């Protein structure tokens, strides 16, 4: 069934103009895969209680969870920017022994189950934790089961997205511009601030948006490290999980909100990340 039919003799063309029948062994799984990805989302839309949606969205616990999610994800992203951009710069621009190991360590939270991340955070920052004990004794600060804990859990899980994105942008940027700046008398800090950062800004923005989206959806590390207290640590994903047991329609509404936010992010990034080259 793959006998090539040449319409006219001539030099070999890179693509056949007359396509043979598509092989069903590829097409059927492809369509099944597409359905698998899209149908659950469609189901969410079909089962949504559209008539009561406005009232449900205005319910205090929904708004509370949404506000908490937006605030914590934004603060976590800011923290990631503050720490992650310099970390990416260090990995991309400074030669030091063990750089490959450090780069591998940075990506660990990407593949680590978030629950494990939460347990690890508890062991270090919990009230009995290595650093947590000292924090409480010296400053009276306790992090677990607080909003600050939510932010720490989200940042822990989301920062690799930012670091990888910014490091990629830094590696792609032409370093000779930095040399040009140095010949003009710019210190390394000035070079970073006035040349490097503006030139990799698209990568920083893309990384920050990805980081923010990941923080917004964070569940496992948050519930493990920060618990599930309405108003202080119950973010949207936690509220969805809880609502599913008591009020499935509320879970659908909350899920719709998260879906809408994800689609908006996807749309805003489509030029840079999602579209094929």
């Amino acid at each position, binding site marked *: 069934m793959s006998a090539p039919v040449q319409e006219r003799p001539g030099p070999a063309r890179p693509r056949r103009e007359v396509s043979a029948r598509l092989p069903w062994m590829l097409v059927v799984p492809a369509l099944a895969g597409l359905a698998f990805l899209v149908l659950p989302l469609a189901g969410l839309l079909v089962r949504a209680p559209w008539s009561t949606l406005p009232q449900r969205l205005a319910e205090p616990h929904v708004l509370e969870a949404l506000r908490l999610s937006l605030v914590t994800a934004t603060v976590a992203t800011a923290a990631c920017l503050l720490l992650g951009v310099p970390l990416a710069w260090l990995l991309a621009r400074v030669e030091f022994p063990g750089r490959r190991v450090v780069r591998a360590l940075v990506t660990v939270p990407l593949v680590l189950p978030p629950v494990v991340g939460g347990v690890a955070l508890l062991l270090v920052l919990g009230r009995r934790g290595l650093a947590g004990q000292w924090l409480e004794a010296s400053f009276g600060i306790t992090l677990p089961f607080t909003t600050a804990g939510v932010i720490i859990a989200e940042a822990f899980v989301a920062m690799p997205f930012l670091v990888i994105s910014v490091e990629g942008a830094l590696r792609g940027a032409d370093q000779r511009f930095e040399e040009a700046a140095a010949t*003009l*008398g710019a210190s*390394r800090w000035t070079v970073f601030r006035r040349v490097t950062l503006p030139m990799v800004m698209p990568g920083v923005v893309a990384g920050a948006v990805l980081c923010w989206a990941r923080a917004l959806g964070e569940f496992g590390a948050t519930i493990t490290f920060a618990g599930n207290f309405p108003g202080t640590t119950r973010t949207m994903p936690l509220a969805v999980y809880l609502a599913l047991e008591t009020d499935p329609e509320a879970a659908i509404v909350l899920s719709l909100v998260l879906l809408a936010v994800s689609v908006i992010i996807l749309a805003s990034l489509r030029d840079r990340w999602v579209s094929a080259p």
Partner: protein
Amino acid sequence: MTLDARLVVTRPAFTLDLALRVAPGEVVALLGPNGAGKTTALRALAGLTAMSGGQITLRGRPLHTLPAESRPIGMVFQDYLLFPHLTVLDNVAFGPRCQGVSKAESRRAAAELLERVGLADRAAAKPRQLSGGQAQRVALARALAVRPELLLLDEPLAALDAHTRLEIRSRLRRHLADFDGATVLVTHDPLDAMVLADRLVVIERGAVVQQGPPAEVARRPRTDYVARLVGLNLYRGVADGARVQVGELRLHTSEHLEGTAFVAFPPAAVALYRTRPDGSPRNLWEARIDGIERHGDNVRVHLDGPITVFADITPAALADLDLTPGQRIWASVKATETHAYPA
């Protein structure tokens, strides 16, 4: 503001070892084939490439101990490297800003420099909106804005098309004449070097092979590379009075010399004959035609034989002689057209 440097950069399979002295106001061109180490030398002066030895002093002060950002230099890069996110004005003001000059004052100084290179009306443009010639002038203004004591230019005209190049070359020459510090420029184009520089330093394989005023270098090349650049046939031999023995061939010259010597003559001085000419000019030899190519308005004939020679003849002469590659032919050059000098 005399520059006095010995630059040593060692890499696997390459060593640059170069002594360089540049007087205030002097323009020195580093000329050489690709891979000779010209750009490495310039980067070492700028502090962008670490030296494995040697030293750099500028006005008696050591330079090689300072990082690039602390050296009193201005550098124009081959493809200019104007910051794409800054306007032309802010590109030029970048250096003064880094030196701690206030924003308003650096912009004023930048505007003045743009005026001087004739680009005051492009101050608000972004670099990508500039033509190649304009970008080159902005790059020069940006380098001069830091009031450097040493100006470094890396192939400043290489990225320009032929027409723009002509205009920018003469502009650059005027700006370099106004500049009172030392200037080192790197180029592989002999014309750029001859027009812009007061002195040529020819580098091959990381070492100086010849230096001197452009006219001197052009008249008395000392390597095949320089001879090709200035368009001369060049041979090294042993002189004995008015004769120089080059391999099997004895060339008669107008100068009297003893010992090892160079003989140079232009390709246009070579005459070609199908049969052995009567009257026997003294420098006559039999050669084989290795190739024939266009060369400007003339035809350049490559000759093999006791010496390898380029001969330039007119298209009419080519037709008359009916030359084909592989053919055997007689070649001669008058003693008065040769130039011999000690090696």
